[in-house]
């Protein structure tokens, strides 16, 4: 159905919240440049487009696909395979596709326990203990639901990915910059980075772009943010005792949360060269602790109330751990 020379574009959400789409729409006037160069062929939030239409396209005919969301069920995975076949450039877009994101925290729990909680809450009236399943016979016929996987997977755990674009969601300015880059490539004025690279983000840590000043002061304890009488608007949050994920997190967002007196929660994922976010953060936090005594260090680190959440908040599914044993075994 292409009647012009525009390059084909696709954007899809799997297990996601829609924030990536909103951030993309928030590029404002850049939408016009986008429109001049791309023809969206599949973008459920913004336009018509059916899986069937994508199936009918020749392989590799979509130039650029931004895929957001983790892989939570068989339907997510089928569409990931389909878009991989049809796309020249497949980008894992946003924290969920890159690293699992917040929905990836489900990997700490078994699917069984997720159902046991969801269908037995204090307001749920479920005397027969009904749990929905992937197929069910109603009087008129059989109904089907997608089958949930025991663990959420990142996009590159099911298909090869060309580029990674982190953020929850990626900042609109970064999205605009990536669109500019691809347009530059189309016009022969720019080159794509090496396959496997992270795009739309920096190559160091959040601390490098955070305007807060660091006195390289050591801390004697961690504090919860609500327990601080005042948050110093200029001093490093970590030096105020707030467990900030900045030292392990990739830069590129502009340090928006620390600028608003809120700690970095790590949505841009592991900094360049960091194999495992949690391990890096643990050593970074340990290094600000005012002690050389392992026992004392351990006591101070105990001040972090939820280590699993702190160290793997956005990246559990993409980490070396990936999931808890109970999730794998579905117990």
């Amino acid at each position, binding site marked *: 159905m292409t009647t012009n020379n525009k390059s084909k574009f696709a954007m899809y959400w799997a297990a996601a919240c829609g924030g990536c789409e909103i951030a993309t729409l928030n590029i404002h006037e850049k939408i016009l440049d986008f429109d001049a160069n791309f023809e969206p062929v599949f973008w459920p*939030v913004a336009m018509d487009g059916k899986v069937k239409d994508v199936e009918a396209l020749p392989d590799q005919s979509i130039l650029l696909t931004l895929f957001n969301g983790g892989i939570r069920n068989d339907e997510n995975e089928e569409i990931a395979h389909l878009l991989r076949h049809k796309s020249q450039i497949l980008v894992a877009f946003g924290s969920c596709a890159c690293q699992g994101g917040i929905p990836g925290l*489900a990997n700490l729990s078994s699917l069984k326990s997720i159902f046991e909680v969801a269908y037995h809450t204090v307001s749920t009236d479920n005397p027969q203990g009904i749990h929905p399943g992937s197929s069910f016979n109603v009087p008129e016929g059989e109904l089907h639901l997608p089958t949930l996987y025991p663990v959420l997977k990142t996009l590159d755990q099911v298909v090869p990915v060309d580029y990674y674009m982190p953020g929850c969601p990626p900042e609109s300015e970064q999205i605009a910059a990536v669109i500019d880059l691809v347009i530059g490539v189309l016009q022969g004025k720019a080159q794509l980075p090496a396959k496997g690279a992270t795009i739309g983000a920096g190559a160091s840590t959040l601390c490098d772009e955070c305007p807060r000043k660091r006195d390289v002061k050591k801390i004697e304890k961690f504090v919860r943010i*609500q327990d601080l009488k005042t948050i110093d608007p200029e001093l490093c949050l970590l030096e105020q005792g707030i467990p900030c994920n900045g030292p392990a997190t990739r830069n590129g967002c502009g340090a928006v*949360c620390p600028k608003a*007196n*809120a700690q970095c*929660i790590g949505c841009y994922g592991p900094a360049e060269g960091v194999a495992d976010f949690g391990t890096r953060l643990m050593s970074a936090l340990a290094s600000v602790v005012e002690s050389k005594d392992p026992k004392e260090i351990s006591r101070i680190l105990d001040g972090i109330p939820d280590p699993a959440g702190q160290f793997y908040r956005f990246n559990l599914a993409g980490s070396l751990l990936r999931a808890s044993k109970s999730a794998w075994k579905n117990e």
Partner: protein
Amino acid sequence: MKQRISIDPITRLEGHGKIEIFLDEAGDVENCYLLIPELRGFERFCVGRPVEEMALLTNRICGVCPEAHHMAAAKAADAVYHVDPPPAAKKLRELLYSAFYVTDHTTHFYALAGPDFVMGPDAPVAERNILGVIRKVGLEVAGKVLQARKHGHQTIEIIGGRKVHPCTSIPGGLTKGITEEQRQEIEKMGRWAIEFAQFTLKLFKDIVLGNKAYLDLILGDIYTHRTYYIGTVDQNNKVNFYDGKVSVVDPEGNRLCRYEPSEYTQWIAEHVEPWTYLKFPYIKPVGWKGLVDGKDSGIYCATPLSRLNAADGMATPRAQEEYDAFFGTIGSKPVHQRLTTHWARLIELLYAAERWVELATDPEITSDQFHTVPTEKPTEGIGIVEAPRGTLTHHYWTDERGLVTKVNLIVGTTNNYAPISMSVKKAAQSLIKKGTVVTEGLLNRVEMAFRIYDPCFGCATHSLPGQMPLEVRIYDVSGKIVEVLRRD
């Protein structure tokens, strides 16, 4: 011949919604199922997390309305710590929330609902989209719509730290306040929003109320359901989005109760069906009687129309005038004709804009007293706000360290799952008779049934082109496709 009609996927709900219609031997609708295939497990995996993080984690339930989850979570965490944030903190949160409402309702009206009314429900499909709206009402309107969205996001970012997924609410208040310079900027944008809301209401009235055919459609029977209605009200029983008690009225308009957030389990319960992941909430004392309306069925609705029905008025002067005009024109209360929800949404848009300016000009709003340190032992807490798509309830239990031990969430759209299912069924029944499927009609009417509620099943359903392309496949009893109907 027995037939089955699948509407799958429901686009911008792609992967997030599916309709199955079964016909009987005579070719009439036997039953209709709206399936929601999503379950992410927030209620399970938030267990173990520090309660102050819930306002960051639950944002990620929905990237379209993260502000609603952020606020409900913040209020629930305040309640867990038994801490009352200082007035400036509550006002700043509500200010952010008012700007969010302007953005959200604007997007819905112009991109989704607008085309049905501005272009008319029977206009050619090619015209029934946002581009058609722009052609009809003028290009400058598009500029205004973008401006309204931009102003809203700017205000959200100034107070909430980010445009998507705000990060500044913590137990006891906020991490930061605003400066006088920021206040002036916010006030200016709010004043512009009031004018924009008035312009939008005038547009709606000129085009819709000035046209008898549209008026007949609105007041007709096609989406009329006599259900209960709920919505949050302030101490004067006026609509409030951020705080108050939840008012419940029966189909005759009698107030059943005004429940405190802490009392919600006495009034609301959720029914489970084995063929869908989403639960069906209902008014508990009335009970679950299946997908039927009337006073004996506990099914309720939580939408802009519900909020107007469940309240006694609006708390700002211009919105109050519009409220009176709304019920005066229709001539009854509660209003059961669901297509009027679009009108109700615009009255809320005006209220949100007026409230935006009220709060931006409040002398306390630039106070540096924006946080109270919690001192009491954390236990259990409930936070309720009105999300644009319905009453949003967050309920947390924690241990003595403030680590979450249990979570219960009833999110906006979930409230309306039963009424949406009923509207879809009614649309199908009115258009499929004796095996004859009214092609275009079916697709349009099913689509309109959805739009009334602005559903957010996968959490994000806003669509720019303003039309819902659909595909209907009709199978014979052996499962063979006999016809495919498309509307692109």
